């Protein structure tokens, strides 16, 4: 009796304390990935359902779809990597200006055949997706004729199709690869599945630091606010913030508790609120934005110190490897 009482003591204490949330691959799939994909599917369907050519309504729906994309854009594995979908959904950065060049060519040609879904799906990734739509919804020159609006609708349909396909393929099979690793799965062991998810977290942080911040920051002497992501529509800072929020959600669903990682995310999210990436040609703003890079490095270090060992996983190869 005495022994069980002794055992019961700590157990009770454990129960009474704040419960430790469950977290691992299954929780990440159920709580982070699938809801995010559902949101992306729903918002792109809403955008595609708009019949009008009214830019305001389209811009609002496009913004909601972009919000949803930023919530899942770091998940660079599985269906999104098939058929170049990730490139077609969000072709950025685009240092050679391919998107504008190819969009101009499409508009000049005004070929009605391109508007057919099958042909639109075959077009260059640089003219499609969220950035293709941004160029049409915030045109540099006033659009003439019906073609730009028809092209907008066709690209929106194509985007919604890709979102629905990714969503469906995750639910039909890819989630199962992560949830049930083994000889017939893409992942042989649970550790491999954990490593795949950890890799998306780390790569997502890197993308925010190197691309979303690095491109507009350039150097102190030569900042490039015009190179920020979605600068035309004024979404650059919002994308950075939403991405960090999504990455924190991923971190939380991978492992609990993660006090050091939480603190690092708190810090970068507090600081991002003080930044406007369209203003980095102002030296004070440049320095504030530069601090975010250090903050993100600190998040990455926290994740590697806290989550990686808990998962027994490292960082795998990823699409950003290379030059």
């Amino acid at each position, binding site marked *: 009796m005495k022994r069980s009482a002794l055992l019961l003591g700590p157990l009770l204490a454990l129960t009474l304390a704040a419960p430790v949330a469950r977290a691992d691959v299954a929780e990440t799939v159920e709580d982070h990935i699938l809801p995010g994909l559902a949101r992306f599917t729903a918002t792109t369907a809403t955008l595609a359902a708009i019949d009008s050519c009214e830019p305001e309504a389209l811009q609002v729906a496009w913004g909601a779809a972009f919000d949803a994309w930023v919530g899942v854009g770091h998940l660079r594995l599985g269906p999104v990597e098939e058929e*170049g979908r990730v*490139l*077609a959904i969000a072709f950025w950065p685009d*240092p*050679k*200006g*391919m998107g*504008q060049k190819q969009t101009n060519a499409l508009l000049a040609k005004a070929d009605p055949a391109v508007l057919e879904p099958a042909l639109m799906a*075959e*077009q*260059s*990734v*640089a003219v499609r997706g969220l950035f293709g739509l941004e160029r049409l919804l915030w045109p540099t020159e006033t659009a003439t004729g019906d073609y730009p609006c028809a092209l907008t609708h066709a690209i929106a349909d194509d985007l919604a199709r890709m979102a629905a396909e990714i969503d469906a393929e995750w639910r039909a099979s890819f989630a199962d690869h992560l949830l049930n690793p083994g000889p017939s799965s*893409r992942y*042989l062991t649970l*550790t*491999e599945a954990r*490593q795949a998810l950890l890799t998306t977290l*780390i*790569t997502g942080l*890197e993308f925010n*630091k*190197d691309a979303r911040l690095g491109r507009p920051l350039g*150097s102190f002497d*030569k900042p490039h606010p015009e*190179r920020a992501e979605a600068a035309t529509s004024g979404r650059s800072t919002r994308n950075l913030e939403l991405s960090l929020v999504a990455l924190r959600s991923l971190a939380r669903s991978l492992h609990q508790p993660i006090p050091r990682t939480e603190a690092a995310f708190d810090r970068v999210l507090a600081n991002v609120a003080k930044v406007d990436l369209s203003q980095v040609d102002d030296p004070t703003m440049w320095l504030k934005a530069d601090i975010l890079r250090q903050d993100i*490095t600190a998040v*990455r270090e926290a994740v*590697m110190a806290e989550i*990686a*060992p808990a998962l027994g*996983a*490292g*960082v*795998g*190869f*990823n*699409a*950003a*490897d*290379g*030059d």
Partner: protein
Amino acid sequence: MKRTLTAALFATVALPALAATEAEVVTTYADLAEAGYADSLATAKTLQAAVAALIETPSEATLAAARAAWFAARIPYQQTEVFRFGNPIVDDWEGRVNAWPLDEGLIDYVDSSYGEAPENPLSTLNVIAAPEITIGGAKIDASQITPGLIRDTLHEADGIEANVASGYHAIEFMLWGQDLNGTGKGAGARAFTDYLQTEGCTGGNCDRRAAYLQAATDLLVSDLAEMTANWGQSGAARAAVLADPAKGLQAMLTGMGSLSYGELAGERMKLGLMLNDPEEEQDCFSDNTHNSHFYDGVGIRNVYLGSYTRADGSTVSGPALADLIAARDPALDTRLRAELDASVAALQAVKTAAEGGLAYDQMLEAGNAEGEALITGAVDALVTQTASIERAVAVLGLTGVAFEGSDSLDNPGAVFQ
């Protein structure tokens, strides 16, 4: 050419007591690198001589000979690309030698359809036509085109990576000129008369063009000599991997995985296909991309099998990474060998089709189903082998922790600390 090296770099975890074998494997790796760069150097010297002959006596024949020498020089060099990722000393140097894509209007005349690149005001500088140039507001005397001018002033001028003034692809542009055929048949068609020092010079400034070609080729030779020495018996690159064989194994696997996945399958193959852009091919002036990709794939397999067939047909080989994996996980070794063979075969299929008349840029054309299938086949094979390379990392007990991102650029030494 220097985006952040986000390669998987793994913290040291104690390895089983097979240190001698690991040291032997890493020694083989360094031997392969040394032989590969030595062959690159030797074939670049042949190119240098052929370029001198072209400049001395411009003709169809001397131009063709220089182009043939350039093709030959690519074969050993591409097999060394696998040494780049995971070895900061190579990665920091590589941009001088193999950078692409380039805004070639920096160097010489271009077609009127070329247009200025949106993020590069120097993309139409045309230094061959301009003895005095302005870069970043500063006037520069470019009356003498020297290796120093190319290396220190023009290359990556204004901090823009597309300003590629040196290396294989700058020389390629000098020998072939722009490929104006889009996704249609044909490579660049520069005429030998672009180098005529007498009447009949085409394109203008033939003397400065010749000086540029010679200087760029001389620079390539000296850069390759530097890297060959780095892998020699007392070289810094060899010392870095041998100092701690576990780190050497990391460098080997990082190179194999990063080149397979992010670089070759992603940046070089899938992206070009998805953009349907004929300039999204590595050797875009000469239509040699199929060979560059193929020898990249061969190089990845070389590192695993610990064997390299030299330009003269002889073989350098020794204890291999494959031996280490086979001792610990024979099934993984069998699988990875088969996957490496499959990717080389898929790249061979691209090469065979290109040699049969379907050039790589034609494969990129929208709606070219055969080309798309060939490229996709190679991409898929490279992606598949990457998963097994990750497993090899785990089997060797190298999975672990440290993720070196920009640290490897800020402080190259940090990778080996």
